[in-house]
Every structure is written in C-alpha cells, then in structure tokens.
C-alpha cells in the first residue's frame, strides 16, 4: 500500500555564520588602522 502523501517539510531556517562576519569585521579594522598608519607615515 502506498504511503499517504506527507506535508512538505517547512524550509530549514537559514543560519548565518556570524563567526565569519565577526572575523571580517576584525580584518577590516586591521586594514583600516594600517591604512591610517600608512597615511600618517607617508604624509608627515
């Protein structure tokens, strides 16, 4: 006997990888601070 059709499973919630975003924030900060330091060295 065929199984009764099951209701479609609700879509799995999309999980954001926050750790990757936090690392990106830190990387961007380091780049910005190095840029400011470069600006200070080159133009002073």
């Amino acid at each position, binding site marked *: 006997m065929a199984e009764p059709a099951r209701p479609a499973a609700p879509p799995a919630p999309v999980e*954001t990888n*926050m750790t990757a*975003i*936090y690392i*990106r*924030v*830190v990387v*961007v*900060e380091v780049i*910005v*601070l190095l840029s*400011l*330091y470069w*600006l*200070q060295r*080159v*133009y*002073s």
Partner: protein
Amino acid sequence: MRWLDWSVVIVYLVWVVSSGIRASRRTDELDGYFRANRSLPWWAVGLSVMATQLSAITLVGTTGKAYADGMKFVQIYFGLPIAMIILSVTVVPFFYRANVYTAYEYLERRFDLKTRTLAAFTFLIQRGLSCGIIISAPSIILSIVLGWSLPVTIMVIGLPTIAYTMVGGVQAVTWTDVKQMGIILFAMGSAVTVLIWGLPKGMSTSTALHIAGAVGRLQSIDTSFNLHTDYTMWSGMLGGLFLMLSYFGCDQSQVQRYLTAKSVDSARHSLLVSGFAKIPLQALILLTGVLTFAFFLFNKNPMLFNPVYERQVLASPRGEEYRALESEFDRNFQTRQSAALALADAQKDTSSPAYASARTSFQTAQADVAGVRSRAVKLVREVTGDSTYTDGNYVFPTFILTYMPIGLMGLMIAAILSAAMSASSGELNALATATAIDFYRRHINPKAPDSSSLFFSKAATAFWGLFACVAAYYAANLGSLIDTVNKIGSLFYGSILGVFILALGFKRANGHGAFYGLVAGLVFVFVFAFHPATKSISYLWHNLIGAVVCVVAGLIVSAVTGGSTSQSSAHNRV
C-alpha cells in the same frame, strides 16, 4: 544664501517631515510605535544606528577639530568594531529574546525596581542634555547664516523633528534616518569635490595632503600611553571600547534601534554595519577637515571664523587691538601661502636640502599664523566673557557659506539639518519610550490601555523635544561641541554599563548590589572628573573607571547583603 539654496532647504524640510509621517505603519499600537512590530530590514536599522550616532556635531565639530588638531580624534572609535562583536554575541540576543521595550525594563526582572528606575532616570538626564547639544550645533550655524537669534534657529530644527517623531514613532525615525544618511553622504562628497577643486591649479590632492601633513594634520595614531592626553590609541582601544559598549549596549537610543529588526541575526547585522563602516566614515569626515585646512592655505579666510564675535570685538574699546592682529594675520597668511607653494614645488624631490628648508619655512609660517589666531581667540574670550570659546566649530560652516556654489550650499545646509534631525529624532524617540515604559506604565498608571500610553508617549516626545531645545540654547557656548557631548556621556556610561555587566555576567549579584554599585560608580566618576588632582585625565578613561567601580562595589554589596535575590531567577527565564 540665494533662492535656489533656500528652495533646497525648504524642499528638504517638507519632504523629510511628510515622508517620515507616511512611512509609519500601525503606529496606533504600542509595538508598532516603539518597535515597528519588529519588521525592519537590517540594512535600514544599520543605517539608522549610524545616523543616530552621526550628528551635526560630527560634521561641524569633527571637521573643525581636524582643521585645528589633525585626525587624532579618529582614535576614539578604535574600540568600536570589537564592541560591536561583543554586543552581537552577548547583549543583542539577550534583549531581543527578552521581548522588552527598553533596556532598563530587563533590570527589574533581573534585579529590582529601584535599579531599573535609577538606570532609566540616569539615561533621561544624560540623553536629554546630550540631545540639546546635538541641536545646538546646527542652530549656531543657522544663526550665523540667517542672522536670526539662536532661539529661533533652535526651533526651526527642533519643531519639524518633534513633529515626525511624535506622529510616526520609531518607524518614522528609522526611515527618515536612511534618507538623511543618503543626503549627508552625497553632500560630504560634494564638499570634498569643491575643496579639491579649490586647490591651486596643477596642485594634486596628494601634494595638498603632504603640505597639511608637514604640520601634523595627518597624525591619526598616537601610541604613547599618556592618561592626560585625550586621544591615544590606548584610550580609544580601552576607554573607547567601554564607551561604545555602554552607548550601543545600554543606551536606549541605540538599543531601541536594533529591537526593531526582524530577527536576532538582523539585529546583529545592523550593529555590525557600524563595526565595518564607522572608522572609515569618521576618517573620511576628518580627512574633509584636513582638506579644509589645505584649502584655506590658498583661499583667504577670516582671522577668526565666528563673525558675530568678530563684530562684537571690533565694536568694543579693544577693537583697535583686534585690527592690529588682523593686519599681522594678513601678513602671516601671505607668508604662509608662499611657503606652502614653495613646499609644493620642493615636494618633487623630498631628499633635497631645498625640501627640508621649504618644510621648515612652512612650519614656522604656520606657527606664526596659529600664534596670531591664538591671541585673537584670547582677546575674544576677554571681550565677550565666553571663556570656553573655540574657533573650530565655525570653520566648516564658513567654508560652506563662502565657497560652496549655488544649490550645493543649500544641500550642505540640508545635510547638517539631516545630521541634527536624525540624531535627535532617535534620541527623542528613546527618551519618550523610557519615560512611557519605565515611568508612566510602571509608576504612574500600570493598567494604562495602549491608547493612553501612546498619547503619553507623544506628549513625552514633545516634552523632551522642548527640553532639548532649551538645553541647546545653553549648550551653544560650551566649547568644542563634539568633546562636550562625549564628556557628558562618559560621566554616566561606564556606571550604567557596570550594571549590565553585573546583570549578565554575575549570577550572585543582587538588586542592592546593582543599585549601590551604580550609585558608587556615578559618584566616583563625578568626583574623579572634577577633582583638581584627576580632572586632567582624559575623559575616555571615565568609561572604564565607572564600569570597574560599579562592578566591584556591586559585588561587595551583593556579598554583604546575602548574594543573589529571588528576582535573579528571572535571569535564567529571559
């Protein structure tokens, strides 16, 4: 200002008020009015978070600081990205899932009513005053532009802001913030273009920056560990970290922004927008101030940038003294201009003796100009009695009114209004929310229906708007506005942060500990900030000190009074 500039400003004011009111949905319910039914996208909330922090002080005061002192101010934001990460991990999911309207509401669940009330009261006083300072900056500019009295210009800014904040609540605030950020960014881009365009023919932006850098205007990182210097890398990384943790994590004007996001992750993303963009944006604004300095090396500027005080001094018995200084300034200005051009020429070969000589000549000429200006400021202070007068706040407005082309001048004024309105609307909304939720619905009328609470909230918005307008009038002469708003905030922020650290980090902390810890932190910081022996220590450290004193005192009192109280069980339920 010409008719086109006036038209731009009027169209802006009408557009922002009407669009703010139209953007509101279901504001007849408390959740819609205070939290936008938790429906706003992360990018809009993120821009609103930034717009609330980016006030007219940021445009006017910061560019003035860069003109006078260089880019050191950027260091105050060095702790911000790390603070955003810490808050995203800890406080954001906590508040969001606690389903609260205000940050202080949670303190009653965790501790007791007195702690909640004191924290909310501290917020109201501190934010009410800060909101006044935020309105005062553009009011000063408008009073110079229009020749109107300060109270009138304060009302021109305050009343439209009160109108759309009152009617539309947090949704009106958020969506107008988004538009206002767009106007500010476009206007700043236009200002940078005009500044570069105004450099002498053939002079590159890089050469202009080299000239400004020769007198320290590109100095942005100070690695010395000097507690008495306001802005160092360490005061920014540590003191600034605590300032940002408290401002974004415990201040209702920011907490309310991310409580409107669709989900916890959306709320986190909205904060991280600042983590990514705040330092670059602030560096660009400071760089605009540095370019303004370079611009005024080659384009004549008045000796002092406040024409009202200049007229007062000239009309006084010491007017002749001022005129003599002006003549000396004119001569020094010409000498400095020639020295700057010579330095630009010598820039082609930086290893030559001619370059070293040109650089020294320019530095001497700049010191001479600064010396005359310093004597003129002293004279103004003596004649007007305004002992805190600083010229920096008037530099960028003078550039706008003297050199921006028709139409763009109006756009710049609209941008300054945008910055003032976006920052103050967020704060008015938060002040009204705390007044309604933490006082009206808790102390005065706990069974109030939504309609009554909404009516009270709107009345509270109007009250705080008018309070801020009065505070703005008295804030106009408080010296560098950007410093003033941060100094006032730093008296309170650390201690409030300490209470939340006790709440979230120490299960044994109880209500008595939190309350007396907060009192101890506030008292200690106030004494520390004004005591002759310690008042010269940079205000950024007040944030760290307040938090530490509050936590230590809170833990001691909690231990003495028997540890965790029954309310603390709510800690686990939230």
